């Protein structure tokens, strides 16, 4: 069984790194690259070999209500692929980028722990275990946000830590109440047990989880920590945070809990819709006002998460397919945009759009890939963002929510404006740049090109044949709702 290795491999790398590296970071780089690429391969194999089945692994050889199960279904396999992919490119991008902060093995150790935490959240079938691995990912993210060692990074990290602490406490309280009511901790057993408990209980714990994981998702009223944290972190880490962390700790857990455990109560779907609509409008609008490139990207992440929430809230298979599709797409193009920002920062020494200038000639790869990413995120065909947004909008119209469809269209136009601003000032501005202060090395370029190619390649997911093999099993897992519990319990 390959299931525990999704945890063991990154953890082994994280624990070995301090022992193998002293002054140099070569050992750490090699180890973490090896670990992440094997994770990606494993995840790919798992997804293709799964064929719509669900694998259950018993940790410590104890069966479900007693021990902790690991569960791998199409949804978790897809998430694992996403994490592995972004982690790999992010590491490739990091090697040179992070050396200007010193050759520090801690970065790689923390990075591997971050990956461990996310994989752990994705693969676990136990509520409390999910909490533990969420904390692992959060601690690693906090340390990495503060990694640069500048005062504003500490400030961002502190703010993030406070918000994380609030949300974790809410979640822990929710777990406590669930345990008090059902005396169960496995997701599958809770799903069965809660089904015949008082609806008040579902409402209350649902509210706690919604607030707690809402903060992790950074949907609009809960977004306060995100712009600081995501813009202060080193660029490859921003890509990890915006690209996958908010999705694993936020979106994925929300889907699992509210669809597979609580059985998609209509009230909470409406809340998803509301959060989504507000996030789309305000997130994208606030993005336009920013001059710091990474802050702009961070605010835009809030807007894009809004689309995913909107798709989730519709509760139709098409909407869910759009949400999952957009989640993958956003991981690809937002990470790419953060790499672009990192490359620009390395080359120009600034993140302020007004200080940048005409760099299309000096940095052809950076500006080319950022053009592709901007087109994708604004929803221009034939790039991936267009198809996922289109799916969500069509699903909204089909579900009779034309107002929300309109909101999505308007949000898309607003985000296009924000990225026009990036292109106009950041890359094609009038301010002539004569000399670059730093060099964008091959590894950085490679990371950017890989993701730029993926921006086009993931569009293929919309082709019916490909979609049947990839998105449809995932959507089936989600829309089968509490069928998840029966599958995991082997009934």
């Amino acid at each position: 069984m390959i299931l525990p290795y999704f945890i063991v491999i990154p953890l082994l790398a994280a624990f070995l790194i301090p022992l193998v590296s002293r002054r140099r970071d070569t050992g750490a780089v090699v180890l973490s690259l090896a670990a992440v690429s094997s994770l990606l391969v494993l995840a790919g194999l798992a997804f293709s070999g799964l064929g719509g089945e669900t694998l259950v692994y018993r940790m410590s050889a104890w069966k479900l209500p007693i021990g902790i199960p690991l569960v791998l279904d199409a949804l978790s396999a897809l998430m694992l692929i996403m994490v592995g992919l972004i982690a790999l490119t992010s590491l490739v991008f990091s090697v040179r980028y992070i050396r200007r902060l010193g050759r520090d093995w801690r970065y790689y150790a923390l990075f591997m722990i971050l990956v461990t935490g996310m994989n752990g959240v994705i693969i676990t079938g136990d509520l409390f275990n999910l909490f533990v691995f969420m904390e692992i990912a959060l601690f690693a993210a906090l340390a990495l946000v503060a990694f640069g060692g500048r005062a504003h990074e500490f400030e961002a990290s502190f703010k993030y830590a406070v918000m994380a602490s609030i949300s974790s406490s809410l979640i822990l309280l929710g777990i406590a109440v669930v345990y008090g009511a059902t005396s169960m901790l496995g997701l599958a057993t809770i799903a069965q047990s809660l089904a015949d408990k008082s609806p008040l209980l579902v409402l209350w714990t649902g509210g706690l989880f919604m607030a707690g994981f809402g903060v992790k998702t950074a949907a609009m009223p809960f977004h306060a920590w995100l712009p600081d944290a995501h813009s202060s972190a080193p660029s490859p880490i921003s890509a990890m945070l915006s690209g996958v962390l908010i999705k694993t700790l936020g979106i994925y857990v929300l889907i699992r809990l509210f669809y597979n455990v609580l059985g998609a109560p209509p009230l909470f779907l409406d809340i998803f819709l509301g959060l989504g609509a507000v996030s789309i409008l305000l997130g994208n609008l606030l993005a336009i006002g920013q001059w710091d490139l990474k802050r702009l990207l961070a605010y835009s992440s809030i807007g894009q998460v809004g689309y995913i929430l909107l798709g989730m809230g519709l509760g139709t298979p098409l909407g869910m397919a759009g949400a999952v599709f957009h989640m993958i797409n956003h991981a690809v193009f937002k990470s790419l945009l953060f790499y672009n920002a990192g490359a620009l920062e390395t080359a120009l020494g600034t993140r302020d759009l007004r200080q940048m200038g005409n760099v299309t000639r000096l940095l052809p790869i950076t500006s080319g890939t950022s053009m592709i990413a901007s087109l994708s995120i604004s929803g221009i065909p034939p790039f991936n963002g267009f198809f996922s947004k289109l799916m969500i909008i069509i699903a909204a119209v089909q579900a009779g929510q034309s107002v929300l469809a309109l909101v999505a269209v308007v949000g898309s136009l607003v985000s296009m404006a924000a990225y026009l601003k990036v292109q106009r000032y950041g890359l094609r501005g009038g301010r002539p740049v004569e000399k670059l202060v730093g060099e964008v090395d091959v590894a950085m370029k490679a990371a950017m090109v890989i993701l730029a190619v993926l921006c086009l390649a993931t569009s293929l997911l919309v082709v019916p044949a490909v979609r049947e093999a990839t998105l449809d099993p995932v959507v089936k897992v989600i829309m089968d709702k509490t069928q998840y519990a029966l599958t995991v319990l082997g009934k």
Partner: protein
Amino acid sequence: MTLYALCFALFLVGLYGLLTKRDLIKIILSSGIMGYACNLMLVLFGYRRGGVYPILERGREAGPMVDPLPQALVLTSIVIELGVTALLAALAIRLFQKYRTYDITKIRRLSG
């Protein structure tokens, strides 16, 4: 029932502190209070009237015992709390070193 409500009240005191206090130290303390409340809530849910602690002893009758599972969970949670406290404290003293204040609004103003 009263105990649950009181425990929840303790949780809300912590939440109140986190939402309104602007002093880094008090924010750290508030997060600790919320942690206490969560832990206590879990153990309250596991108490069984007349039960003894879940450790077998030689020569003692195996009477009813309290629920051991919440205790195992809270053990984990206590460790996590300490981790949060250490990390927050480290960040706070770095911030103090730079700005010479623990007031988060002043820090925000100073950093622009």
